[in-house]
């Protein structure tokens, strides 16, 4: 396990996002600590993806500040911006692979952009990254259009990890995957986190993912955020949070997570 320090690696303060008359975030605060896996959940349209895009600088908020690695993302010079971009990786929802390049070349893009690297080494790095994210040998030569959705996500993750970033941002990493593939993806992220010491900021709808790998969960409700461990949130009285975690799906995920203790499992035989 990487050491979890108390110093936040991402700090969002008093964030306001507004589109037209629609206020999405209103005074939102959030801190993400080094080495943790933070899951961000919320109803559709509650601004999860907007939050992610704001933190990585793709969306300019109306007000507030966003600090990553101690730099204010909203008022940053080009050189610092590039330095920061070297240290994060982003996995977009459908992988966002460059369709005219092979998977290996996709992984090579950030390496080529930031480091003057011999082609051979770049190919080697791409090859083992393909292995690390659990893609079968030979995937590197394929084009994104030849891959399934799950493989595209893994390839996108491989590209996000190309520079060995400290933070990875994942936008719904398990959406659209079958439960087995989604489960494997969870395991993959957990393994990578522990071996590479990643900080993971993950937008997700997947309750199983939340229960399986997230250290803390941030819930977007009422244009603000409530952060806590799962145990804390399970006890939260907010109606949306209640129905989210205590609805049938939440109970099912909770149940499957508690299968470590077989006695409890025996008692909780499918009340659904």
């Amino acid at each position, binding site marked *: 396990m990487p050491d979890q320090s108390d110093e936040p690696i991402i700090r969002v303060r008093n964030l306001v996002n507004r589109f037209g008359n629609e206020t999405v975030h209103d005074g939102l605060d959030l801190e993400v600590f080094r080495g943790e896996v933070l899951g961000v959940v919320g109803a559709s349209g509650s601004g999860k993806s907007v939050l992610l895009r704001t933190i990585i600088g793709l969306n300019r908020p109306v007000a507030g500040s966003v600090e990553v690695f101690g730099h204010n993302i909203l008022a940053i010079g080009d050189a610092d911006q590039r330095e920061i971009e070297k240290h994060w990786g982003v996995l977009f929802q459908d992988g966002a692979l460059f*369709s005219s390049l092979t998977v*290996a070349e996709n992984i090579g893009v950030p390496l080529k952009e930031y480091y*003057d690297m*011999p082609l051979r080494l770049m190919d*080697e790095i*791409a090859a083992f990254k393909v*292995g690390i994210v659990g893609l079968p040998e030979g995937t590197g*030569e394929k084009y994104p259009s030849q891959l399934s959705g799950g493989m595209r996500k893994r390839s996108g993750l491989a590209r996000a990890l190309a520079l060995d970033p400290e933070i990875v941002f994942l936008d719904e990493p398990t959406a659209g995957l079958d439960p087995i593939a989604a489960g494997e993806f969870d395991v993959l992220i957990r393994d990578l986190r522990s071996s590479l010491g990643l900080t993971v900021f993950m937008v997700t709808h997947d309750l199983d993912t939340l229960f399986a790998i997230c250290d803390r969960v941030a819930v977007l409700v009422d244009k603000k955020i409530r952060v806590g461990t799962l145990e804390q949130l399970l006890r939260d009285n907010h109606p949306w949070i209640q129905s989210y975690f205590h609805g049938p799906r939440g109970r099912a995920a909770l149940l499957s997570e508690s299968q470590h203790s077989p006695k409890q499992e025996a008692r909780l035989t499918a009340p659904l």
Partner: protein
Amino acid sequence: MASVTATLVESEELGLVILAAAGEWLVGAAADLDRRLRALDVPKDRRVTLDLAGIDRLDTAGAWLLLRTEHDLTARGNTVEMRNLRPSFEPLIDQVRTAGFVPPARHPRPAHHTVAGFIARIGEISLGLVARAYSILGFFGVLCLTALRLARHPRRLNMTSIVAQMEQTGVNALPIVSLLTFLIGVVIAYQGADYLRFYGLESYTVQLTGASILRELGVLLTAIILAGRSGSAFTAQIGTMRVNEEIDAMRTIGLDPVEVLVLPRLFGLVLTLPMLTLCANFMGVFGGGLMAWSQLGIGIPQFLTQLSTIAPWSFWIGMIKSPFFAVVIALIGCYEGFQVSGSAESVGRLTTLSVVEAIFLVIVIDAGFSIFFSALQI
């Protein structure tokens, strides 16, 4: 990248080669380390120790370089031992080790970079053209059959959609078509008058401008503008719908994509292209007349008299051609849209292709008409 410092020191004692790695073995130093590691010249059949005690920071790129060195040295018959790795780096090394020694992916290189491949490519393209022509003909057949079926149930024809297409392809194209043909009329009259004056025939400028605009340029320019403007839009619209699986969704609901998407576009264009041609002709002749008046002092009555000396057939030939061009543009635009598969990239590629093909076919058909009408001696 200058901030990353990693070192590698080679030393030898008692027949034991020691490679001491130290510093920050991170991706930023990888290129430099790679060069030095490849330059290493360790003799065969020796005992080699990789001393990793000095490594402060390590990432997967650094881990890969260490493992590759171990692997390469072993492959050359050395006995390699990694020593003093910090326990906190072990999971990382394991992670990279399990990812394994996969041979790097080859970069797909176009086959036509060899002589044989080049010749094969010519054959491939030629056969591809034939297959494509066949396929387009097939699509034209489907279109005709659908149109015939619709003729028996005319109420199924979606008038709203046709009118919307006419607005898109016709009304919205009016300014650009008018402006361009007006300018072409001006240019022809101006240039033509110059040359004709040389022979003392400048009074024929009106006939020259009138005949070239009415017979050829009006309709040709309009068709080319529409191929670029609307043919490309057809391909992009239908192609995007294919990428979104909207076409498949239509089929499952029982809607015929050809009937819903193609026919309104086809009918719309067949109706608007002649109208636009009419407008283009007017603007072209107007531009020519304006020039004749300002440069040669030809007034309105004389202009009209001169214009009427060119046979009315000149006008009709232009108008007759326009619906044929419309069919070609709509056909190619929609056909290429249906060829889109999988990625967004293919939408772009096929859109370009559709414009090029449509303009090519329009000019070929125009040449065909030229031969046809001259055989009829019109």
